[in-house]
């Protein structure tokens, strides 16, 4: 039965054909075919995305929202169409709730600066978790310093799952915000964000979900989750760097002040009083990243053309295969064994430092991430200075997993 399912999932996606869309994958590094397994850091870009950039700059490069001429109109249309595509992609209720920013980090900082500074005061509490990326820790620490609010942390169990009982104990009338990651970049854990949200709402706390490692791997329906804010980065979703999204509930965004002033975010300016523009423009001061926003639209189209459910199924199958191949390697320990996890395989290899693992694997053509993965509290929790991480995308193959397994064995050989 499993065999049948495997075949079905594989045949659903023609990986050979998909790989042809990614020019970067065609190269050799150190004389070996590139095996790119650092997808949680950033994903490669398909031709459809690359071409959309060329097309924009070659055919209709122009500033948006401010020109009566044809090119400006075309650029504005293409830019605004992406908002609708993002809304559908996340199943957000309203297009104007989609704010374009540089990435997840900037999205979290916007909420901290605009919502946080307005509504938080001394004695209030913010809950995050032990598995957060530094970008979902530091903005809240800064906010706590500014407002006198306190940061509370949901601990992890040994599998790298949030201890929900502990979370329940942390929640109180003082809780004003819960900000947690949807899927961990280090442990792969997929968090029960719907349950987390429901529990927080009992105390009228707002909920922000960091979707940087989620939207590219499985279907995200923010209305189903019920959260108040959701953030993701384009470059982890096959789009360029420098473009990301914050979605927020309209009624919240309406109450929040702008966090940056400039052009495009105003309706009228006099020295006596400036009237701010409506959402989302209120939060998009200055000329935005037009080209990369349009390319984000192309990336979403590309992902939709393959189907996010197909991607999830295939990547899950690939992950299972990776566990089968890697776990029997003597001296290797998987860190992050949540019951529900996706696409990330972080490991220890005896007492060999991850940096050495990374260099030796690189010489075999295999690109992986080594280090603390911007999650130093996770390193502390599992008692390691750093880890090696293999992270998958749908253009990866079982053959590449085999090559990675052989490279890991080579690392052991060098240090034996």
């Amino acid at each position, binding site marked *: 039965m499993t065999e049948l399912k495997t075949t079905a999932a594989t045949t659903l996606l023609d990986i050979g054909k998909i790989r042809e869309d990614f020019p970067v994958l065609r190269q050799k590094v150190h004389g070996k075919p590139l095996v790119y397994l650092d997808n949680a850091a950033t994903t490669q870009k398909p031709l459809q995305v690359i071409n959309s950039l060329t097309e924009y700059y070659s055919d209709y490069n122009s500033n948006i929202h401010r020109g009566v001429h044809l090119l400006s109109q075309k650029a504005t249309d293409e830019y605004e169409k992406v908002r609708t595509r993002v809304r559908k992609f996340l199943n957000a209720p309203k297009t104007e709730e989609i704010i374009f920013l540089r990435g997840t980090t900037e999205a979290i900082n916007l909420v901290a600066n605009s919502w946080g500074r307005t509504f938080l005061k001394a004695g209030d509490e913010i809950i995050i978790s032990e598995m957060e990326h530094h970008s979902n820790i530091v903005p809240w620490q800064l906010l706590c310093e500014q407002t006198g609010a306190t940061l509370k942390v949901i601990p992890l169990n040994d599998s790298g799952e949030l201890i929900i009982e502990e979370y329940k104990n942390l929640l109180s009338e003082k809780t004003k915000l819960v900000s947690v990651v949807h899927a961990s970049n280090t442990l792969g854990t997929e968090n029960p964000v719907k349950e987390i949200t429901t529990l927080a709402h009992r105390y009228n706390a707002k909920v922000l979900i960091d979707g940087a490692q989620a939207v590219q791997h499985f279907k995200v329906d923010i209305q189903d989750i019920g959260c108040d804010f959701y953030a993701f980065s384009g470059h982890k979703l096959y789009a360029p760097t420098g473009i990301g999204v914050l979605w927020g509930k309209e009624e919240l965004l309406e109450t929040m002040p702008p966090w940056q002033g400039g052009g495009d975010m105003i309706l009228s300016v006099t020295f006596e009083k400036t009237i701010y523009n409506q959402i989302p423009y209120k939060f998009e001061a200055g000329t935005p990243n037009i080209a990369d926003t349009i390319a984000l639209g192309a990336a979403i189209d590309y992902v939709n053309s393959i189907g996010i459910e197909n991607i999830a199924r295939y990547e899950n199958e690939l992950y299972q295969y990776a566990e089968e191949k890697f776990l029997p390697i003597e001296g290797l320990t998987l860190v992050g064994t949540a019951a529900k996890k996706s696409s990330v395989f972080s490991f220890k290899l005896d007492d060999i430092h991850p*940096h*050495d693992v990374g*260099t030796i694997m690189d010489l075999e053509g295999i690109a992986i991430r080594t*280090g603390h993965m911007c999650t130093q509290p996770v390193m502390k929790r599992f008692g390691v*200075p750093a880890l090696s991480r293999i992270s998958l995308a749908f253009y990866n193959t079982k053959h590449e997993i085999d090559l990675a397994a052989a490279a890991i064995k080579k690392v052991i050989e060098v240090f034996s």
Partner: protein
Amino acid sequence: MNDELKELYQQVILDHNKNPRNFRKIDPATHTSEGLNPLCGDHVYIYLDVHDGIIKDISFQGNGCAISKSSASIMTAELKGKTLEQAEHLFRQFHDMVTGKLDDPEQIEQLGKPAIFLGVRDFPVRVKCASLSWHTMHAALHQKDTAVTTE
């Protein structure tokens, strides 16, 4: 193993990684400093006992990759008994060697055991690993209070 790999992970380097020399704390030390490589999490403490301009004792602690650990080990073995002037000179020479500015084989040989890290220059992202302990030692001798980072 290919040649690049053999050059980087030579037996001597692997041996110092496994059995680091002078891996301890000197207490009290006349000079100490802490070094960090945020990229990979390398973290090293260097302790020195300096009297009359001579490094009587030098040691290190911390954790890091094979390159950083063995470089610290080899450095401590090399610098013990050297004068501060000699240490300063070796620091410059080592730095120039791993960054590719020092090519003269004779001068490289004069570095002694640390010359074994010549191959690191072919791995730009690993240069920091080899030089972290040297920078930390240098900071300790110059009594810089803040932690050294390679970033």
